[in-house]
């Protein structure tokens, strides 16, 4: 199935929850905030969110800025 991650299409071969997806992509969970279909979802809830086709994820982090 295909989901959208930070505006780009991403193919997922096996069913997984959000926590597994974050881990599989090499993100450090404590350094990111996730918007799942437009809603901010806390890290404690990631395991309960099973990804489905056309889900939209925004994964953001802090960077240098003024």
């Amino acid at each position, binding site marked *: 199935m295909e989901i959208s991650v930070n505006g780009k299409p991403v193919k997922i071969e096996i069913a997984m929850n959000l926590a597994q997806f974050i881990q599989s992509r090499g993100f*450090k969970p404590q350094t990111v905030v996730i918007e799942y279909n437009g809603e*901010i979802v806390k890290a404690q809830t990631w395991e309960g969110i099973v990804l489905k086709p056309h889900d939209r994820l925004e994964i*953001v*982090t*802090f960077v240098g800025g*003024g």
Partner: protein
Amino acid sequence: MNDRLKIGNQELTSRLFLGTGKFSSNKIMPAAIAAAKAQVITVALRRADQAYPEENILNFIPEDCILMPNTSGARNGEEAVRIARMSRAMGCGDWIKIEVISDNRYLLPDNQETIKATQILAAEGFVVLPYMSPDLMSAKRLVEAGAAAVMPLGAPIGSNRGLQTKEIIRILIEEIELPIIVDAGIGKPSEAVEAMEMGAAAVLVNTAVATANDPVAMAGAFDLAVRAGRQAYLAGLGRVIQSNASASSPLTGFLHE
């Protein structure tokens, strides 16, 4: 000297806010922050790219600093609100610098959209510090909207051109009860001194430090400048006379008399 700057519920001893953009390496940052004696540090929020797992910038910012994420990248108030909420979800406090920019050439902030975002976020309990184009009526509306301070620009972002908007900033300091923090444009310590002598509550500096040959030494220079300017403001500047001169030494008892 008990001269604290109160913003929200925080009392600050440092009036130099430091941005973290444009440093050649994150590794310089702890020393620059220490040299600046800065307590308020800005960061930006961006999409995380797993292909380039960057070092976490928070590892380079001392934990006792107040983090002030900005909403850079927002083109309207709605986008600024979204970025602010995501920033707060990072769990690093309630401060937010509103930055709404739709002008790609001069990067001037959109005051109207900034006011909208300020109102929404202040109502949600954020400590809102809006970056704005210097304008008295907009500043008044930011006060009404619940801003914790008002941050007019001295010159376009990253330009290092100094206090081009000096006259309006002077008026804002006079007319607005909230702290006025000069954000953007300050390129030299002398310009920070000038802003502080005028009565600015603080200055926010990034490019001037980050692009200096020696950012750590420059951070120290800005610390001295901000403290000198503040002390001069508190001392009250001596008067200016418009013509001729006024002797500093007595005009009596000359040896030729």
